[in-house]
């Protein structure tokens, strides 16, 4: 068991493409860290650098206190679960699990014991004699996880392991990964672009964008107090409504003076779930008001998303519980509590003090 620590880690590819631009964070022992961000944000590259599959241009990577920058992947005591599982197609499940141990010259009885234990934990015992091509996607996923856990490594690395599964299976595997990680208490780093996976799995959420870390924190902390406009828009579905507001326009849109817009303006954000439609057009005490024209309505069952736009053109989404919602073209008033407003600097790079 060991923690993982990154200090100012950079990756520059040939042609001066900077994929990771100086990332530092520390995953404490036994924690489940999720790296989340849009495609191309450098999260997978970072994970592969921790695994040792990519070289590190500069910076220091430590696993369990040892600097591993120049250590071979097999010597780092890590295990990785790949997006497409990367099972050896010509070996049966048993040999897939045992291969890494054999290469380490683990004694045969111990290999057998460990493989059977992993198979029992993952409930794949009946499949041990089968070849990967005879397995379903979910079963392959389990074998891939099994290959990681038989090794009893210091760190698990997951590279979007659920993205090849169908939606239903993804949810159940997500729960299982969480349970498994809890019971094994192995430090884990998990890469995903799915913010829902990120929110539900993480003890520690690292939001990345364009090769940089935008915010590190507990999932709910990140949700409630996003540090940048990017995080605000990325975490949460549907995304937070963001509007650029100049001080002089603020009064017309919302009660500008009271929400403290600086002279040169700010990005004001409010989550769809914090907005509600006012039946009689009145503003609750201490609240803010947005006049909307409804463009579209999405009913998904337990809730309804109302897509509207304010007079100046910004799009605003309102989440309404139930199915009762106005029709397209209607004018409605959306209201929210003032303390639910998020304000960011004009370039979106920092959160303004509440």
């Amino acid at each position: 068991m060991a923690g993982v620590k990154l200090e100012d880690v950079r990756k520059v590819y040939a042609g001066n493409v900077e994929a990771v631009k100086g990332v530092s964070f520390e995953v404490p022992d036994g924690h489940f860290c999720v790296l989340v961000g849009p495609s191309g944000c450098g999260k997978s590259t970072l994970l592969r650098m921790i695994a040792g599959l990519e070289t590190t241009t500069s910076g220091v990577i430590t696993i369990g206190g040892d600097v591993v920058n120049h250590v071979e992947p097999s010597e780092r005591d890590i295990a990785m679960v790949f997006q497409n599982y990367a099972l050896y197609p010509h070996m049966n499940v048993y040999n897939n699990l045992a291969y890494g141990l054999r290469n380490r010259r683990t004694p045969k009885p111990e290999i057998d014991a460990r493989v059977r234990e992993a198979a029992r934990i993952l409930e794949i015992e009946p499949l041990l004699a089968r070849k990967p091509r005879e397995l379903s996607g979910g079963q392959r996923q389990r074998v891939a996880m099994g290959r990681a856990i038989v090794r009893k490594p210091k760190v698990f690395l997951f590279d979007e392991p659920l993205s090849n599964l169908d939606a239903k299976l993804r949810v159940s595997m997500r729960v299982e990964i969480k349970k498994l990680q809890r019971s094994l208490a192995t430090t884990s780093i998990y890469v995903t672009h799915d913010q829902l996976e990120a929110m539900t799995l993480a003890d520690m959420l690292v939001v990345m964008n364009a090769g940089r870390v935008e915010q590190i924190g507990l999932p709910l902390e990140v949700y409630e107090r996003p540090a940048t406009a990017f995080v605000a828009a990325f975490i949460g579905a549907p995304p937070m409504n963001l509007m650029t507001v100049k001080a002089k326009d603020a009064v017309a849109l919302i009660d500008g003076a009271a929400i403290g817009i600086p002279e040169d303006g700010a990005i004001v954000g409010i989550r769809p779930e914090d907005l509600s439609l006012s039946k009689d057009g009145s503003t609750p005490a201490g609240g803010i008001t947005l006049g909307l024209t409804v463009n579209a309505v999405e009913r998904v069952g337990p809730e309804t998303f109302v897509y509207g736009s304010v007079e100046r053109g910004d799009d605003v989404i309102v989440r309404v519980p139930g199915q009762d919602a106005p029709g397209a073209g209607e004018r409605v008033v959306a209201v929210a509590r003032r303390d639910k407003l998020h304000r960011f600097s004009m370039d979106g790079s920092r959160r303004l003090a509440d």
Partner: protein
Amino acid sequence: MVEQKKIGNIVPHLILWVGIVIVAFPVYLAFVGSTHERSLIANGQMPIWPGSLFFENYYRTIFVGTSGTTREPVGTMIVNSFIMAMVIACGKIAISIISAYAIVYFRFRLRMTAFWVIFITLMLPVEVRIYPTYKVAADLNLLDSYAGLTLPLIASATATLLFRQFFMTVPDELVEASRIDGAGPFRFFKDTLLPLSRTNMAALFVILFIYGWNQYLWPLLITTRDDMQTIIIGIKKMIVTSDALTEWQLVMCTVMLAMLPPVFVVIAMQRLFVRGLIETEK
């Protein structure tokens, strides 16, 4: 529906049968010819039914040989041909799979140069470079030897390219998983790449064995001693003769014998061969 299907099947079957007859009839005639006595064929009377000299003719062909022309029993030629075809097929596969592995998985200086040099040899089969190749073989004292028969034919761009294409379809994650599992380059090659290439190797073996077996020009040049002849050369030598009567019944025996090993190889490897050409195990 059923009726329609039956009628629909008749035409393709008819075409297939016509094709089979066209291909098989000459082979049958050769077989018939190999079971009669010399005078019958020499007189221009080609019988349609097999004769009675099957055992006698084949015994003479394999163990004694023709009386005046090749001076070697066909048994020796078959052994020579077999060694040549086997060494060429196995050697080509071994060399090309290793070079394809190097080109695809290792980053070394002049990698692309190496690839293009191999690629260019596609344009230089033995027939084109026959004089220089002969000169080199002669200087190295390879005339009348198995090494001389096989080595110049072994280096193969086609097989290298085929393996290269196949290796490039193997997902990178497999290499990475192997690295994490502690398998070095040699283990990855032995434990993962070779088993995955099994069907490709089988398909290639069939093609290359037949290629080696059917070699004519190169063995004709490089061998002068009778006991180094291959069977394909043997057939030719049995016929071209001015001072003796061609023993057609023995020529036909030799033809039949020359056909058998490739046929066996195809039958034995058929399942792997087809799989190697149509599917990839991934």
